[in-house]
């Protein structure tokens, strides 16, 4: 059992939890949180795949992918939250 395997499993676990929550919950904020957890899970399995246990280094290209993913996600999350807040604000219009 290597540490890579642990993180693979942890990443997949995050994916499963997030997908389950996405499919069972209607609350906007919670759905956005679930999408964020989903993204973290993907990042984790990607990094774990890029990790080479023999040399102990992680391939820089998946690292760059994950970095890009994090920035993209914060942008989309901000837009989603702005939309959710506007929706909440206009509920009694």
């Amino acid at each position, binding site marked *: 059992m290597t540490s890579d395997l642990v993180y693979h499993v942890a990443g997949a676990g995050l994916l499963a939890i997030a997908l389950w929550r996405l499919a069972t919950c209607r609350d906007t904020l919670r759905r956005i949180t679930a999408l964020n957890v989903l993204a973290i899970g993907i990042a984790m399995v990607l990094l774990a795949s890029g990790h080479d246990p023999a040399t102990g280094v992680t391939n820089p290209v998946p690292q760059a992918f994950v970095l*890009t993913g994090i920035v993209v996600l914060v942008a989309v999350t901000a837009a989603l939250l702005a939309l959710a807040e*506007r929706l909440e604000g206009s509920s009694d219009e």
Partner: protein
Amino acid sequence: MNETSLLVSLPLIAALVAAAWPRAATITGVIATLGNAGLAVVLAIRIGQGGAEAEALGGWAAPLGIGFAADGLAALMLVMTALVGLGVSVQVAGAPLPDAGRTGQRTAFWPLWLATLGAMNALFLSADLFNLYVTFEILGLAAVGLTALSGTRTALRAAFDYLSAGLAGSLLLLLGVALAYATAGRVDLAVVPELAGSHEGRVALGLIFAGLAVKAALFPLHFWMPAAHSSAAPEASALLSALVVKAAIYVALRLSIEGGAAVELLRLVLAVAGAGAMLWGAWHALRADRLKLLVAHSTVAQVGLIALAIGLTTGARDGTIWRAAALLMLSHALAKAAMFLAVGRITEELGHDRISGLNREELRPGAAEFAFAIAAISLIGLPPTAGFVGKWLLLDGLIDRGAWPWVALVLLGTVLSAAYLARVVSRCLRGGPHVAPGARRPAWRAGDAAALGLATAALALGLASALPLTLLDATLT
């Protein structure tokens, strides 16, 4: 300077200018859209004559760096985007401003549209899976902005559902890309055949296709789409329905061509889902009580038809059916944009968009109804429109193969589309005193020009369908 570089950077630069100086937004937007159309046409002509081109960005070759692949299919899509964009831009730029509320809407439209344009161009040219994911994110976000543009509560609600579904889709895509990396060690587009050769890689392709299906609103993952497309402003709906949906379909087509015979299963799924979409969309379009909802559901059905065509492509690159799919995408883009613009005008004029209240006081239909009718003819696939040539090629290929059940399905879809579009067209021809109290003929006489132009383009492309077909020959050779 290369056309491809300008195609991807010019719209983004223009978006920045339009966002920074709202007063110059309209003029910037129009100039950039015009320039983009010119560039796309120049590139298409060059590719049509000289064949496909590939470029390694920054001089870093494919597995490590990102490549641009400008072939006939990409060029056709670029021209399609440019044409539709031009029509919608004319509509937005020319519209009179009835009140101050719309000024802000219009200035906000331009940067969002230009970002959409830049993202679409980048997406069509990209030859890298991860890069595709990033372009999808720009596209999805800008499209949500366009949806929310009208600011009504329904539009905001639809925009939120659109964005969260879109994000789930692109995350699935990203998951697929991650698995592709984990399997093959690289993520450029040429890796697809290799992916199809291993269990893990096949799972990756399955996840990528699932993500694309969400983005393309493919049945049964279309749940977000009718609301989004019917609640947005007409110009935004035109862009969303005509172009944004095509991005995901384009990638599916590209992957399907790249993957060859090895992705037969995915193609079968596409074909079945497409058939489902065709029937489901048509059924709901037949029952819709609002015009925009009918048109939005017809998008579901038409996307289904295109997906069906992609799904029935054989692995061979010299087959005819994928050409049919490309042509159907083109004709649907032009016709659907024209249709949404026409619906916008009809709604503006009547003060409502209930189908039951479409009858007009005098018998003579106006230019908007005429544009709608031409677009409907193209969508149904009657000669001599581009839709007809596309369907003809599709049926030709299917009959060559003896795939009679599929032929029957396509014909059924055609009949259904004729049925639901006739609901509108026939009503426009009827007389009756059913004009809404607030109805007025808008003073803006040129307002139908864009819709008519786009509908005519769909018609003319059918007559000159040899042009796109020759261009497609320059694909993946």
